[in-house]
């Protein structure tokens, strides 16, 4: 594999290889090895057409810890604001010798276009495209689940996960459903009917409209961000009502199994989909998810760029 475009492209073996590699890389970091040598002399371009804090910083930290040279490109303040096309930007990056391009784009499918257009010869990593996919987020979520529930070993067979909230617009949800199912986990999507996409019944995940009934038997609850900018689009009546029906608060958290964890891809709307006391509780692994993101992205970059050709 040369690119990572969709979580659905990964076989169970490939996914486990990435998670195992991330485990070893996390151990190296924990042992105080700040910099590892395998990508010395390789150039990774972070091509970000959309705002991002943690994903871009996470990819940058990952590439630097593997000794790659990193070029950060954000659409703001670049020739994109003068109207340069993705193609011309890609050709420029190719001319500068990019070995891999990490792309975030507001258009679903942009990473696929970049990888299959012949514009660039290097690998492409999808860092989130439109409402389509965010495969490294799914990998870091799988890593976090495996760390807490499977002692960092093997797949996620038998693990039950509830993904709650704005599934309709969530690339995180799409990638997670694909990857978690590949790894053997059972996924339940919980959302108001207006925030579920057409055809969700074909995803191979259970669907529920009722949060209270959906969290008592799961091993993890993954809350999705509600995008406040969409609140006026009549997906739900008011923020208060959404929070009342689909927000995770302390009372709801009490009904979860003792070992169950709370996840959130960030950025959080505290008080909206997740209450502050839940976000800061002992069950919350939200900060761990960020740390795990660096290890998982290191694993992806190492496996795609570390050898002759990727996994």
């Amino acid at each position: 594999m040369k690119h990572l475009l969709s979580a659905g492209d990964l076989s169970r073996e490939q996914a486990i290889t990435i998670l195992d590699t991330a485990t070893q890389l996390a151990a190296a970091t924990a042992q105080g090895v700040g910099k590892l040598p395998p990508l010395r002399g390789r150039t990774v371009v972070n091509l970000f057409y959309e705002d991002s804090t943690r994903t871009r910083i996470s990819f940058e930290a990952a590439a630097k810890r593997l000794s790659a040279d990193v070029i950060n490109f954000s659409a703001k303040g670049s020739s994109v604001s003068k109207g340069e096309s993705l193609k011309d930007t890609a050709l420029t990056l190719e001319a500068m010798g990019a070995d891999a391009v990490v792309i975030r784009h507001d258009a679903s499918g942009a990473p696929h276009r970049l990888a299959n257009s012949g514009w660039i010869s290097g690998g492409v990593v999808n860092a989130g495209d439109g409402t389509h996919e965010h495969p490294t987020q799914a990998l870091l979520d799988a890593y976090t689940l495996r760390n807490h529930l499977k002692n960092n070993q093997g797949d996620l067979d038998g693990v039950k996960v509830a993904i709650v909230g704005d599934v309709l617009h969530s690339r995180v949800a799409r990638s997670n459903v694909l990857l978690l199912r590949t790894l053997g986990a059972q996924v339940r999507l919980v959302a108001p009917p207006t925030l579920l996409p057409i055809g969700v019944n074909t995803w191979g995940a259970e669907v529920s409209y009722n949060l209270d009934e959906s969290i008592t038997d799961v091993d993890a609850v993954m809350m999705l961000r509600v995008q406040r900018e969409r609140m006026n689009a009549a997906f739900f009546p008011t923020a208060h009502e959404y929070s009342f029906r689909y927000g995770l608060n302390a009372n709801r958290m009490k009904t979860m199994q003792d070992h169950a964890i709370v996840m959130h891809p960030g950025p959080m709307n505290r008080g909206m989909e997740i209450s502050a006391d839940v976000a800061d509780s002992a069950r919350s692994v939200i900060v761990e998810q960020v740390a795990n993101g660096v290890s998982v992205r290191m694993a992806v970059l190492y496996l795609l760029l570390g050898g002759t050709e990727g996994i």
Partner: protein
Amino acid sequence: MTNVVEPGHRNSRVVLDADDMARALTRLAHEVVERTHGATNLTLMGIPTRGADLAARLALKIESIQGSPVPVGALDVTMYRDDLRLRPARALLPTTIPEHGIEGRLVVLVDDVLYSGRTIRSALDALSEHGRPQAVQLAVLVDRGHRELPIRADYVGKNLPTSKSEQVSVHVLERDGIDQVTIEQSS
């Protein structure tokens, strides 16, 4: 149990059996104790996978001689290899650093087979990321020659003259179900 080579397997012969291996490791343990003046400042670092298995055994043997436990760890060298780009990306193996680290310790690297010396060069680089040992020595079960770098072992279980077309395989009980070293013509 997959890599077990039956004695008499075509093109393969056993050069060390379980008893030979045990004796070689016992001798190595005594040599390490002697050369390190009682192994008081000793830390063993095995190179995964089978070097790490052998390091754990060597530590037990030294403990039985000296009466005090020997810190033992594992050191993955994959990311430090000079041929990383020549092959598809390889899976990483565990690195474990003993409790008190390697700073100021007398570190003995342990590997199963010494061949080109490139693994050991990588190991020296990997080791330096974890601290500055007082000294580094090398123990191997088999030295098969054909060095490509100025590296030699301080402790050798068996010198095994080979041709480059041959393959030397070390099998260990905990991983392969049998203790033996075989040599075969690679196809």
